[in-house]
């Protein structure tokens, strides 16, 4: 249990500051990219990719997911799976539209 030790926390604080800097930088990047007027698909891909990196940083460091316990991961894995099922929903609907058009 060195997660609670003084040295560990002090080291962590430095990490938090670096993560903050990265997040701020990525925010600026994503706004800048949006002014480039990329093609739609590329724009979506880049924006979501950056958001994914930012989100991962927050989850990994601020929410301590990097050092989290197995049980938390299990719950999140299940959630991620069901979240993927949720995304079937727009997929189905566009398939419906397709089937009508064809």
């Amino acid at each position, binding site marked *: 249990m060195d997660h609670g030790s003084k040295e560990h926390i002090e080291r962590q604080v430095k990490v938090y500051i670096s993560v903050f800097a990265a997040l701020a930088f990525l925010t600026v990047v*994503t706004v800048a990219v949006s002014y480039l007027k990329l093609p739609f698909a590329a724009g979506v891909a880049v924006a979501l990719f950056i958001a994914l990196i930012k989100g991962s940083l*927050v989850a990994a460091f601020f929410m301590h997911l990097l050092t989290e316990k197995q049980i938390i991961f299990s719950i999140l894995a299940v959630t991620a799976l069901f979240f993927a099922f949720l*995304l079937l929903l727009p997929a189905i609907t566009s398939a419906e539209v397709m089937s009508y058009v064809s």
Partner: protein
Amino acid sequence: MSTAVIRYIDKPHPVTGVTNAKLGTWCFLASEVMLFGALFSAYVLLRTGVSEWPHGSQFLNVPLATLNTLILITSSVTMVMSWASLMLKQFGKYRLYLAITILLALAFLVVKGFEYGHKFEHHHFPSTNTFYAIYFTLTGLHGLHVIGGVVVNAYFLFFGKRMWETHPEQFAGRIECAGLYWHFVDLVWIFLFPVLYLL
């Protein structure tokens, strides 16, 4: 009545390695993922269902939203610093960081309020079109989550001292959980910002 003690309130469970509160918070966040996931999915469905969809930046104020993103990211850092201060047994610093977190959250809400006000002035309401409908619903729901975070954090700011003195470990655990929630609110915004404003 020694049997009446609920275990693992302050100490982690030897097998799972987490406290009750932490596991509970993560479960709650899992359900929040599904809530925002469903709304996100609804957004994709509605957007792909029509041929024309406005580009967010045409209607929305990107600089203000960028500012808000930075505010929220900063508040996330101060939140985690506040927890770290508790772990270092620096209660004063904890209070300072937590207060800053709350102020930043309020600043976020004020900026959001300006954005909303501006929209209303130009007669842009949720009923105007599907784009505004989804914009107001998603940001509104996120705003409610911010308000919820402010209430929780304010409670710990003003009423936390006694518990810190009697049950320091349990209290640090609670701040960690409040932090988890707050970071989640930040995380949601990190996705909302590009999706609504930049695409």
